[in-house]
């Protein structure tokens, strides 16, 4: 447990799906590119050789993590930009072939709001339902396909309840129908092995700050032969596909971070999986009327998501905060039941459960001790809030 604001309160960060600290090794890799090797990669002179070489190396690191070729990787400013580019770029490039997009109802807003925007521009979008565990049924994907369908976008793993989708099967269906398949893998990187070829993926989004890389960095994998219109026009960077002076330190950090976090996925899964199971089982045992949301097995190895009816999630979050525990809620009070998280609504969580939900997402930097501390504090805090709210 780290040092924290007040001497006797520990700091237990359990919100790795929101963001992660940039790993010190990653920061170290980035530093020379701020001050020393600062040359614009587009410049011809020797000073810029280091920038160019560093970008090429980072491209290789990302490609290696996904099982693709270097030239299939394009750097962006984050997962949101990658998602926007994939959807708008593909919709636009294939608008002559059709105007129908299929996605799921539990995508991140970066996908959903982009789809809603495309709907205002003449596209039709099917938002597939999910079962109570958050799973998309590949049969539903197949059934939703029309002659107008040009793009299917289904996330690899959900950011709230952690459910992992049958991406390979969905990709195969897409390809059977000559439809492009995009997956938002922002939450998946580092937590499960990814091979874009074997998984039938044409486009894949990722975001650096979700795996101990820097914020404001991301990438889009674009399979060879897939033609995408540009999202951001201007200079000839990224082989003319994504304009703007390259964020060299950020790209270096993204590369270092993805290499680091994919170096030993098996070990990570064992370690973090054990902590998560200890946490989830401990909660189930100690806290009455607790409900585990998401899929029992097909879920992110670091995700535990619960509802504790009889209290408000935000209040829970803030009391945990005062105990040095940082977590996330499924749905904010200001939004209330009507605005309950679209994910919880889609998996059929009742409003009273939805407003009382808590997401705990672990990382390699968490320890058994920390989990024990949470299992100590959480039941007390929940009991206190339930007592105050029961009548």
């Amino acid at each position, binding site marked *: 447990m780290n040092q924290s604001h007040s001497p006797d309160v520990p700091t237990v960060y359990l919100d790795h799906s929101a963001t992660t600290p940039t790993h010190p090794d990653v920061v170290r890799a980035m530093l020379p590119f701020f001050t020393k090797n600062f040359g614009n990669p587009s410049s011809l002179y020797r000073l810029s050789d280091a920038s160019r070489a560093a970008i090429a190396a980072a491209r290789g690191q990302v490609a290696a993590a996904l099982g693709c070729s270097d030239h299939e990787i394009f750097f962006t400013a984050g997962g949101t930009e990658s998602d926007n580019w994939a959807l708008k770029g593909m919709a636009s490039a294939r608008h002559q072939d059709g105007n129908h997009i299929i996605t799921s109802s539990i995508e991140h807003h970066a996908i959903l709001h982009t789809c809603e925007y495309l709907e205002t521009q003449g596209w039709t979008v099917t938002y597939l339902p999910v079962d109570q565990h958050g799973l998309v049924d590949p049969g539903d994907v197949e059934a939703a396909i029309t002659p107008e369908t040009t793009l299917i976008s289904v996330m690899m793993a959900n950011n709230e309840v952690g459910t992992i989708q049958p991406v390979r099967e969905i990709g195969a269906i897409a390809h059977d129908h000559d439809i492009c398949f995009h997956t938002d893998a922002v939450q998946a990187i580092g937590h499960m092995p990814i091979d874009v070829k074997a998984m039938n993926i044409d486009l894949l989004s990722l975001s650096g700050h979700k795996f101990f890389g820097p914020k404001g960095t991301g990438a889009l994998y674009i399979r060879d032969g897939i033609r995408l219109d540009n999202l951001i026009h201007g200079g000839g960077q990224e082989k003319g596909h994504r304009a703007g002076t390259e964020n060299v330190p950020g790209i270096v950090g993204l590369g270092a971070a993805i290499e680091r976090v994919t170096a030993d996925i098996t070990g990570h899964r064992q370690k973090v999986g054990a902590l998560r199971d200890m946490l989830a089982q401990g909660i189930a045992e100690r806290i009455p009327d607790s409900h585990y949301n998401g899929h029992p097995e097909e879920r992110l190895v670091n995700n535990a998501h619960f509802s504790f009816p*009889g*209290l*408000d999630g*935000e*209040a829970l979050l*803030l*009391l945990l905060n*005062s105990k040095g525990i940082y977590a996330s809620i499924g749905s*904010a*009070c*200001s*939004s*209330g*039941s*009507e605005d309950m998280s679209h994910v919880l609504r889609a998996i059929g969580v009742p*409003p*009273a459960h939805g*407003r009382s939900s808590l997401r705990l997402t672990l990382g390699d930097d968490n320890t058994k001790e920390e989990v024990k501390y949470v299992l100590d504090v959480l039941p007390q805090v929940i009991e206190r809030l339930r007592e*105050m*709210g*029961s*009548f």
Partner: protein
Amino acid sequence: MYNETVMDHFEHPRNVGEMEDPTVVVEVGSSECGDRMKLYLKIEDDVIVDVSFKTLGCAAAIASSSQATEMIKGKTIEEAWNLTNMDVVEALGGLPEPKIHCSVIAEDAIRRAINFYRKDQGLEPWK
């Protein structure tokens, strides 16, 4: 996101709990966000001599409940009637814009309780 006064009222709410022998008890719920509050008043000679509450709600709802109960304790029911949720928000030193509505539940509960009391006394409810 919340200021220290709000956090203090949230973490250490005043007047929490049930009350033995209250003059009046009401339960109100906000349909907007599902918050619920139960308010107990002990009234003597139109003066609120004791008050307690229970609230299921976010930090803003709990802090507003706590602050509001502090503000009406020892006051006449007329004074309490005139307390608005914005008075409570002000006393708390402000709430984030999207959380203002969470303070309405305390105002609601107080007015509803006062009118229950007046009806009990055979008086017209205030408007």
